């Protein structure tokens, strides 16, 4: 009997994380591409950190920030009556943070390559700045935004290190497919490890093909 729960959980966590990282990431990308303000470089560096940090370090920081002994963790427990860590919410947070830089970086370069003359023309036509962004810049950058969101989804789906630290390895609750693969290898259940790995590799290939399609054509 194949246990489909890890795959289902992974897809659910990754989709939710993509929603979070996609919304936040596109907004941040727009801000970083258009606005000039102090601390912009710092925001960019912090957002990019998850790409270069070892996932274990990221997981450790998240555990420290969200754990039962942290202010956020305590506030959460007061509010919802149970700790935040070792829940599916924690898995979503880990996946969102891991996915965010992929969305921001890809979306930002897409936004920056939109022809400024078109935006200028829209302004001349009398559109307020927010409508220029919402109806001109972002639609014109849509393929790049799509590529960034697709990359973010792939990264969220594949996260292991950060997720296992803040969400644990609880079968039926927080055991995502990458964690299931790890557990299956440890248990000597190579058949399950192969199936899980094949599914994850398959999804990754499909997503990367989609990204190539999206970013390969001119915007």
């Amino acid at each position, binding site marked *: 009997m194949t246990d489909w729960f890890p795959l289902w959980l992974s897809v659910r966590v990754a989709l*939710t*994380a993509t929603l*979070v*990282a996609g*919304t*936040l990431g596109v907004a941040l990308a727009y801000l970083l591409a258009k606005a000039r303000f102090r601390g912009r470089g710092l925001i960019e560096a*912090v*957002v990019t950190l998850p790409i270069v940090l070892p996932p274990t370090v990221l997981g450790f920081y*998240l*555990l420290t*920030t*969200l*754990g*039962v*002994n942290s202010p*956020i*963790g305590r506030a*959460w*427990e007061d509010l*919802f*009556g*149970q*700790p*935040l*860590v*070792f*829940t*599916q*919410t*924690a*898995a*979503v*947070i880990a996946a*969102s*943070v891991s996915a*965010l830089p992929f969305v921001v970086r890809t979306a930002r370069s897409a936004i920056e390559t939109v022809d400024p003359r078109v935006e200028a023309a829209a302004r001349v036509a009398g559109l307020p700045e927010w409508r220029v962004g919402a109806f001109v810049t972002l639609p014109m950058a849509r393929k790049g935004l799509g590529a960034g969101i697709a990359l973010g989804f792939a990264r969220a789906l594949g996260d292991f290190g950060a997720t296992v630290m803040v969400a*644990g*390895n*609880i*079968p*039926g*609750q*927080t055991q995502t497919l990458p964690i299931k693969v790890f*557990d299956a*290898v*440890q*248990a*000597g259940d190579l058949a399950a490890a192969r199936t899980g790995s094949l599914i994850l590799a398959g999804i990754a290939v499909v997503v990367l093909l989609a990204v190539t399609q999206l970013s390969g054509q001119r915007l």
Partner: protein
Amino acid sequence: VVVVVAVAAAGCGSDGAAGAREGSSPPSITVAAASDLRFAFEELGARFEDETGTAVTFSFGSSGQLREQILNGAPFDVFASANVAFVDAVLAAGRGRPETKADYAFGRLALWTPPGVDLPAGIHELTAPTYRRIAVANPVHAPYGVAAVQALESAGILGAVEGRLVYGENISDTLRIARSGNADVGIVALSLVIADDRDHVLLPEDLHEPLRQALVVTAEGASTEAAIAFVDFVNGAEGREVMVRYGFALPGERRATG
């Protein structure tokens, strides 16, 4: 950023662990168990579910890692450690029920080699050049790793083989390293290889401090009763029979050192 993500994610996941635990129609418990228990406890869990209707989910890891998770608020109902010290640490932090602390087994070490490598006759033979890589569990957080290093030290060969040691995350990861052929021999838990089709060499238990395995109920609220029932089951007649079959010595029945 973390805060924003946390708030944004709040909507999604609150049905996560809470939903699984509160939907009390078929009762269920989650057990954090040392990875030397993987095979024995999976069998025990299935039997317990058959007899009581309570589903048991296991999260296996090294005892040190599981202790960290419990101290950080992991929703486990029972903690079955490979070393009593980790149970004491959980109790000291106020996250377990002291009256439920109980010994349930003594673990034993065994040498295991992958196909194509001759099994050593005893621990002293590990200095032979055949054994280029020796897999042990990480002694920093895995009790079987501590015991393995103690055994090498008692045998007087730790210095000779120290450079050849490779560390598994926990004892089943250690066996995985050996099983894959990436180490020529593993110092593993007897319980993981006793049912194996390959031979093993049991190490004398006086080579290391006893692997005194203890458990404790860490449940709070609704699942406490089921957790206590599971602990009683492990230490009951049926549980003890299964543990013995997987090579564990039982508390009260263990021979004096030697």
